């Protein structure tokens, strides 16, 4: 008995591990599609909402560009850079997905920037702020439009925060600042449209 204690104990655990791993792998392959579709849809939706002029958003995969953007963004994460293309195929600006720190966790948002480097719109992709307080960044319809037309991080810094949602709105502001800085760092619209 002493010799095969490893077998006696190990076999059941091994079986359970095999079965659950197989089961999970299957579940994963079933849910993988919806998960990715969800993410893509949410991305596209918020990008379109913040830059309505554009028809499609092409993801920029250039690693050096992403690195430049990340450096410029500082402690805000840059989750994606998109080339905004209108119906005729001309580049009308850029969409940036950034994640900034809110009160209840990360605030992920999409920032649309036009050819002149001005903010066209900001939408919140996901956030986890306290309902009724931090969630005012979405509920207060006057807040997000405050960023419209800003052209530099310095200008963005002057936007007023919402009472009772200071930390959350500061998070949004930081996100916009970082997005603008990243946009400048990758060479503005020229950098974006270069293939």
């Amino acid at each position, binding site marked *: 008995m002493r010799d095969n204690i490893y077998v006696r104990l190990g076999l059941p655990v091994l079986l359970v*591990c095999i079965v659950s791993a197989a089961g999970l792998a299957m579940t994963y392959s079933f849910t993988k599609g919806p998960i990715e579709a969800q993410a893509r849809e949410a991305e596209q939706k918020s990008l379109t909402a913040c830059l309505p002029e554009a028809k499609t958003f092409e993801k920029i995969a250039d690693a050096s560009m992403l690195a430049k953007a990340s450096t410029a963004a500082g402690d805000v994460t840059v989750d994606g850079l998109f080339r905004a293309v209108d119906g005729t195929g001309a580049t009308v600006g850029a969409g940036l997905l950034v994640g900034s720190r809110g009160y209840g966790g990360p605030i992920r948002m999409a920032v649309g920037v036009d050819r002149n480097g001005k903010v066209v719109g900001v939408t919140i992709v996901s956030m986890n702020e306290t309902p009724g307080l931090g969630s005012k960044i979405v509920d207060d319809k006057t807040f997000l439009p405050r960023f419209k037309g800003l052209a530099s991080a310095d200008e963005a810094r002057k936007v007023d925060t919402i009472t009772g949602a200071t930390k959350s709105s500061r998070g949004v502001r930081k996100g916009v600042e970082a997005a603008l800085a990243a946009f400048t760092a990758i060479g503005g619209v020229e950098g974006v449209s270069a293939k």
Partner: protein
Amino acid sequence: MHVVTQLALLLIGAALVNNILLTRFIALCSFFGISDNMHTAIGMSLAVIFVMMLASTATWIAYYGMLVPLGVGEFLYIPAFILVIAALVQFVEMYLRKYSPALYRAMGIYLPLITTNCAVLAAATEAVKPGFFKMNMAYGFTLGENLIYTLGVAVGYGFALLCFTALRERLDIAPVPNVLKGTPMAFIAAALLSIGYIGLGSLFGL
């Protein structure tokens, strides 16, 4: 210098600003169970620091050494982490009991309690998944950052636990309305302490 500052901020952020007990509300089961006695609280805090460092190193290695290369990290991390943590903690407990009875009596008896302590799994999970602390590093910590972060979480846990235990010891003798005596009053005290911790929210702009 920049790296050092960043690590220091990570440590403070994990320990105070995002205190696992009082601002994140993780690991509360043992928080109330174990906080009525200073002696127990100290033993528990030490054990938590020790186990968390050990466990998060092990889970980090399991994640980046095995799950990620195989491309299964996305969906296998929960069973893998909890398996590693459970086995490791039980092993350490048995080892201490046999070879270091003094250490075992001081903190070993709290080890089993830590397996099911949410804090360990939470810290291990957050170290590899996007979440609260991921603002400045896209996804996942390096091993060094992971250690610093875990140390912060664990120390923050211990500090909050000791603060609360001291409060409760005083509360025992305070003239509290009869119906609030005991657990209800402990909750209310925890609420006030938690409000205090929220005040740390803007520390160093973290």
